[in-house]
């Protein structure tokens, strides 16, 4: 009897421990290991940071050369003062790891195609193995490996990158398991050592985010099946009539020094060649990735000194992509937004000047159809003969399953991304290779290292001249009074529409024929109008002698230039108002054109009510307004009525035309071919579909009203979402206006990820805010400190002090000292 009791009791106890010691599957995902997770000395409780935590510390590391002091201000922004440059980067790495380790590693795991290793093969509707294969087959790791060699070939940058990596690893090495960030405990894995390759991977990930915008080659190719080349020009125009380019219209450009022309026979083998492609998975960066930047010269400011502003629009994630810090060494003092995962300040300012970036959005990712001899892909046809492929054999580790080996054939064009093992859904045994600028060796850190130290315009030009990918509009302003902007990147010299569609990959004819010489990139220095600006619009007018490809939303650029032209005696407050401005210039034109075509006599009372609200709207996308929702819903219905019928002819992925395409067409022509619903016997006019779409819109709006989602803020639902999409770790339903085509480009999960205003007066006067917090720990009060300030359109004044002032000021709350030992 006693044995029975003992046995039962022992079995129950052991079973209980085992169950609590493993991850349990629940509803498609897995729980943490609950025993450990709930143990106050091991689990999540250890991540509950005391509200009044003291961040003072004195630390010793043998790798340091001298002493480093770090002062943290009350926002937990570190101000690093190092005697030696490499020590500064060691400490930068250490602090990135201390406050953001999980995100650094997670983002680089994503870039390296290693998500299945930590998340398993699938979760919900996400197939991580396919996602991993997609990133690897895109050539992300291949490009990062090449960039790593380039980075390490530069002794200065190698030294800083090594110091950064050593700093990250110094933190990881001393990190007890119970102090690991919460996400490691939830997913049950451990951090691994940082490497310079991870830094390179992170930068390639940013290249993917930003230099994948023109990536519609498959969709455009499919469009050729249902649209004539004349229609394609109409649906996907290369230039918009209304655009106000970065470099103003009328600027003269020298003839192209690298003249390229389409291959003979391109009309039949490219422009009118038909193909149908539906890839297994084609992950694209957010279409909204963009940004604003502008700099006004001293002649337009109240202080007489230039002011530079920048707000990069990226995914609104928690922890934030950005980490704010100051890095000061005897030769240099700079401040700004840094990337956890990379050394240096990326967007910011120093004692002499300030800089910022917006995305160029040019197409540097093209696809080629490859003719393989057979399904082994050992040989492919190139320039009239069979050429032998090389292979990358990638081992994909999958949590809880056997490894998977992925064979990727490499061609002269690039990796074969889609083949019979990673197929076109149409299963037609075709092979597509991708050529992406990010495949090439490049050293982006060098640019930021030099910008951090730039003293004047020439230093700025020199710093950015080696920057290749992702192409950016680098803006600049200096205390000495210069303002400048240049679209920088290594851009392929393309013939008209080269790479807009999938190209033939059987010879060198369709390959990129060299690059646009750096000196021919669009640039502007101290223009008479007193400002430079960019907002992802096309960089030049149509007289620029190269084809650019890509995607260039015009409207933010128009409103920025309109406002900057009108403003004089500009103050920092003016710039804050402008960066957070909710005026909808797209609706200014769009409402006018929709109302012009709408026959109001055919509307009922309920419809007229909505119409009145729309007419009386002041065109501001503020959170409590109904006008923006009415306009948006009507516009979307109008697009559907215009194009829905034609696009329904194909089940393949297609590119929906840009909003500017419909607007400009309606402004130009009173009879628009696509207005007709081809499914009906009659011929519909613009007026017919304007009425129809308004009636449809009112039905939708009535439903929104019932759901309490008619007000713009409620309709838009802006939030900053945790990287694992855990709602409890996200900040949802934030009260912030703005939206598409608006300077305050805040959408559902996307928007100004860092707002910065720098007045280049004698003592630099700078303001910044980002939607996140300095700590990546959801259990810290510093996790989301800035979110409400950001949503309210407010800023923090930046503390930018030299070492002596930092030591004596009472604005600094904590001190960390790092000494050699």
């Amino acid at each position, binding site marked *: 009897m*006693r044995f029975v009791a*003992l046995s039962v009791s022992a079995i129950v106890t052991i079973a209980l421990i085992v169950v*609590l010691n493993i991850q349990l599957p629940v509803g498609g995902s897995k729980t943490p290991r609950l025993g450990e997770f709930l143990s106050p000395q*091991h689990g999540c409780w250890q991540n509950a940071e005391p509200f009044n935590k003291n961040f003072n510390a004195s630390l010793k590391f043998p790798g340091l050369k001298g002493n480093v002091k770090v002062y943290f201000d009350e926002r937990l922004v570190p101000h690093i003062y190092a005697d030696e440059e490499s020590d500064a980067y060691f400490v930068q790495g250490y602090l990135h790891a201390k406050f953001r380790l999980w995100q650094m590693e997670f983002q680089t795991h994503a870039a390296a195609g290693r998500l299945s290793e930590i998340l398993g093969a699938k979760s919900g509707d996400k197939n991580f193995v396919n996602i991993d294969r997609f990133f690897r087959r895109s050539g992300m790791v291949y490009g990062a490996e090449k960039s790593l060699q380039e980075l390490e070939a530069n002794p200065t940058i190698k030294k800083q990158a090594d110091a950064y990596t050593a700093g990250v690893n110094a933190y990881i090495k001393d990190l007890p398991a119970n102090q690991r960030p919460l996400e490691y405990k939830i997913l049950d894995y451990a951090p691994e050592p940082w490497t310079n390759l991870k830094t390179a991977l992170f930068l390639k990930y940013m290249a993917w985010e930003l230099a994948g915008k023109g990536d519609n080659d498959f969709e455009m190719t499919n469009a050729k099946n249902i649209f004539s080349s004349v229609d394609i020009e109409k649906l996907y125009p290369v230039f918009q009539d209304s655009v106000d380019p970065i470099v103003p219209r009328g600027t003269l450009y020298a003839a192209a020094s690298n003249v390229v022309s389409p291959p003979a026979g391109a009309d039949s083998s490219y422009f009118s060649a038909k193909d149908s492609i539906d890839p297994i998975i084609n992950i694209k960066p957010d279409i909204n990735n963009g940004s604003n930047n502008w700099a006004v010269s001293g002649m337009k400011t109240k202080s007489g000194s230039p002011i530079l502003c920048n707000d990069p629009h990226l995914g609104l994630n928690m922890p934030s992509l950005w980490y704010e810090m100051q890095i000061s060494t005897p030769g240099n003092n700079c401040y700004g937004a840094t990337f956890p995962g990379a050394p240096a300040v990326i967007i910011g300012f120093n004692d002499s000047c300030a800089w910022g970036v917006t995305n160029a959005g040019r197409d540097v990712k093209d696809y080629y159809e490859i003719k393989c001899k057979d399904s082994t892909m050992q040989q492919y046809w190139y320039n009239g003969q069979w050429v032998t492929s090389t292979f990358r054999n990638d081992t994909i580790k999958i949590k809880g399953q056997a490894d998977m080996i992925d064979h990727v054939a490499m061609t002269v064009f690039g990796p074969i991304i889609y083949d019979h093992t990673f197929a076109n859904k149409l299963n037609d045994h075709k092979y597509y290779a991708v050529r992406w600028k990010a495949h090439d060796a490049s050293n982006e850190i060098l640019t930021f290292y030099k910008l951090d130290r730039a003293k004047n315009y020439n230093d700025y030009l020199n710093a950015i001249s080696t920057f290749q990918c992702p192409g950016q509009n680098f803006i600049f302003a200096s205390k000495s009074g210069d303002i400048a902007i240049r679209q920088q990147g290594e851009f392929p010299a393309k013939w008209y529409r080269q790479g807009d569609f999938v190209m033939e990959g059987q010879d060198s004819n369709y390959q990129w024929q060299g690059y646009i010489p750096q000196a021919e990139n669009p640039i502007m220095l101290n223009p008479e109008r007193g400002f430079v600006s960019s907002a992802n619009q096309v960089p030049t007018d149509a007289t620029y002698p190269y084809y650019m490809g890509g995607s260039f939303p015009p409207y933010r650029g128009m409103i920025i230039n309109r406002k900057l032209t009108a403003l004089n005696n500009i103050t920092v407050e003016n710039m804050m108002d402008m960066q957070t401005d909710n005026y909808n210039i797209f609706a200014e034109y769009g409402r006018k054109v929709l109302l012009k075509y709408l026959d109001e006599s055919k509307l009922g009372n309920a419809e007229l009510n909505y119409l009145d609200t729309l007419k009386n709207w002041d065109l501001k996308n503020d959170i409590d307004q109904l006008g923006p929702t009415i306009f948006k819903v009507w516009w979307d219905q109008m697009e559907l009525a215009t194009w829905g019928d034609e696009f329904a002819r194909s089940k393949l992925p297609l590119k929906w035309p840009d909003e500017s395409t419909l607007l400009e067409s309606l402004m130009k022509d009173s009879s628009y071919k696509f207005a007709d619903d081809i499914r009906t016997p009659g011929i519909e006019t613009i007026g017919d579909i304007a009425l129809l779409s308004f009636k449809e819109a009112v039905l939708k709006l009535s439903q929104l009203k019932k759901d309490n989602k008619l007000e713009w803020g409620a309709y838009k639902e802006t939030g900053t979402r945790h990287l694992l999409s855990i*709602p409890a*770790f996200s900040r949802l339903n934030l009260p912030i206006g703005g939206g598409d085509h608006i300077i305050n480009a805040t959408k559902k999960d996307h928007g100004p990820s860092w707002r910065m205003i720098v007045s280049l007066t004698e003592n630099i006067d700078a303001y910044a805010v980002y939607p996140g917090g300095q700590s990546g720990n959801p259990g810290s009060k510093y996790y989301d400190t800035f979110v409400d300030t950001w949503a309210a359109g407010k800023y923090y004044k930046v503390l930018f002090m030299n070492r002596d002032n930092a030591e004596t000021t009472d604005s600094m709350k904590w001190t960390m000292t790092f000494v050699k030992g």
Partner: protein
Amino acid sequence: MKFISSLLLTALLSFAGALFFPWWIIAVAAFVVAILIPLKSGYSFIAGFVALFLLWGLQAFFIDTANHHILSEKVARLLPLGGSFIALILLSAFIGGLVAGMAALTGSFARKISS
């Protein structure tokens, strides 16, 4: 007296053990204490349960209070416990108590067989 000693010793060994070993060291602690200090089986269970219920519950409570519930309310939405920090503290305490109680019960049965 033996009950109180069992309870305190289990809590102490669990706390010290957790500094060096995984969370399930609490089961070892409760088991060993139940072997060392003779109690009726039911009392052994209660001593182990209460020891860890209090140890884990109080630790969680103090950590949570210092943290102003920032973490617990988030984790209590994730698990899901309706965002209640009290529920998360009680769940932690209960899990600790149950494991230690069962281990203590097993220890007490083992002691009876060997004696």
